[in-house]
């Protein structure tokens, strides 16, 4: 990939990221054909879960990477350059709770705080602090939608694209925290030492849209 190594996120952004690489003239057939292989040295591609992308980029194990803005917000201490909004993988970070009367309001009024389940504890804590409400955060790793249904928490903070999963689980969106999409990030040292390669890539991606 023109002298650069890139971390490619598996999961929701995988397909569109490979499409983007195709349009940049990178032959991604091998990546598409191999579910289990993770490293593709010929084209400078390493695949990994999206939340690991900032780690590999920050440490310079790869020069650049693609991941969601949600991941970057949750790991906001990472020292990486955020170069470009790639425009795909758009979704929203929201506060959602069960349909009907607001359990969040009730909980805040009577219990002084609201219990929220999430995979994004730092985004959640910042949001509730910014809006002047006390929050008890319960961190979960998997499908967070079950938390309000089982009584683990009054509400959830999670990413949603269409809202279908929320509706499916009788949850409604109450607040939007921010919009998220795929971002191109770079290691700070690579950003200086491979400035030409990185700038060329950014220009080519900009010219695609």
């Amino acid at each position, binding site marked *: 990939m023109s002298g650069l190594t890139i971390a490619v996120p598996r999961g929701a952004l995988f397909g569109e990221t490979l499409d983007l690489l195709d349009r940049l003239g990178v032959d991604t057939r091998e990546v598409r054909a191999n579910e289990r292989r993770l490293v593709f040295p010929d084209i400078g591609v390493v695949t990994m879960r999206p939340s690991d992308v900032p780690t590999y980029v920050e440490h310079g194990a790869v020069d650049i990477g693609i991941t969601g803005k949600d991941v970057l917000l949750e790991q906001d201490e990472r020292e*990486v350059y955020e170069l470009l909004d790639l425009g795909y993988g758009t979704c929203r970070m929201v506060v959602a709770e069960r349909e009907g009367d607001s359990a969040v309001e009730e909980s805040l009024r009577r219990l002084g705080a609201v219990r929220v389940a999430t995979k994004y504890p730092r985004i959640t804590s910042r949001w509730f602090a910014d809006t002047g409400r006390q929050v008890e955060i319960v961190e979960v790793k998997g499908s967070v939608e079950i938390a309000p249904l089982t009584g683990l928490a009054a509400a959830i903070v999670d990413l949603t694209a269409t809202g279908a999963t929320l509706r499916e689980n009788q949850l409604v969106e109450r607040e939007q925290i921010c919009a998220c999409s795929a971002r191109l990030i770079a290691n700070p*040292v690579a950003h200086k030492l491979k400035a030409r390669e990185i700038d060329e890539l950014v220009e080519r991606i900009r010219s695609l849209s």
Partner: protein
Amino acid sequence: MIHPIPSGTRDVLPDEMRELRELSGRLRDAFERAGYGEVWTPTMEYEEVLKRGDERAAGAGYRLFDEHGQVLVLRSDSTIPIARLVATRYRDAEPPLRFCYFAHAYREVRRGSAQAREFLQGGIELIGTPGPEGDAEVVALVSAALEEAGLRRHRIGVGDGSLYRTLLAEYGVPERERMPLLERLSQRDLVGIETHVNRLGLPRPARDVLVTLPTLRGGPEVLERAADGAVAGAIESLRACHELLEQRGVAERVIFDLGLVRELGYYTGAVFEVYDPAVGFALGGGGRYDDLLGRFGRPLPACGMALDIQRVHVAQAEEERIARGEEPL
């Protein structure tokens, strides 16, 4: 039975210790030959004194009380202590003054980040030589010392930490909008900068400068591209610095980087950062701090730079591997 040590600290055994000593020795020799005598300052200082130099005591992470209830901090860099030392022990000495140091500094670390809580810094401070002349001396000496340590591929980024702030003021960006932009700049969030600048409704040329300036980095040609009226002074200083670096034969080592900012609050102008392709983090950094000594009662312009010796060691080991004919990692 496990006897743990705090994360981010380490024991050093003889093989590594010999190499670290040898590396520090080479750097120290280069600094001493250039007239930078080595000093030592206390590992802990009064918080009140360090705060005189920087509100956050340069980001100190560890505080303790002495037997009188005074707050002591473990130093997080050597620049403020040396400013204090100059103002007290060299009160009447004729500038310029040149010092080097090799000392441990202490900072808080993030969990699971492989960062060091205790790290060995080697650096220089040049006190009393203003502007480009001082900047060029410091950059050239650090580069020469790294060369002697075998880092044949190192580069030094040179920028000016006040550029963006000056531009925002010059373009009449309202006060409350400046802080968020400066924060995004120090977080390296170029997407955030562009989105935020677009919302300000500035005339096209001003908007373009604010969006592109943080991405300008490279040879002296980037200085031409930024020759905007608002920051003409700072750019002129960098150009003068480039000329002096050319005379000293190290200009090709330098990357002018107009988006470069350093976190510490005491920098007033030029800022530096050291890179090597073998390490994903900067090997060190520094800058000009013309107001710091005045806060201790001896107003003198000054600048300096510090290297993280363990990171330099990693780069050195990689250079040696390449020299043996092995593939770069």
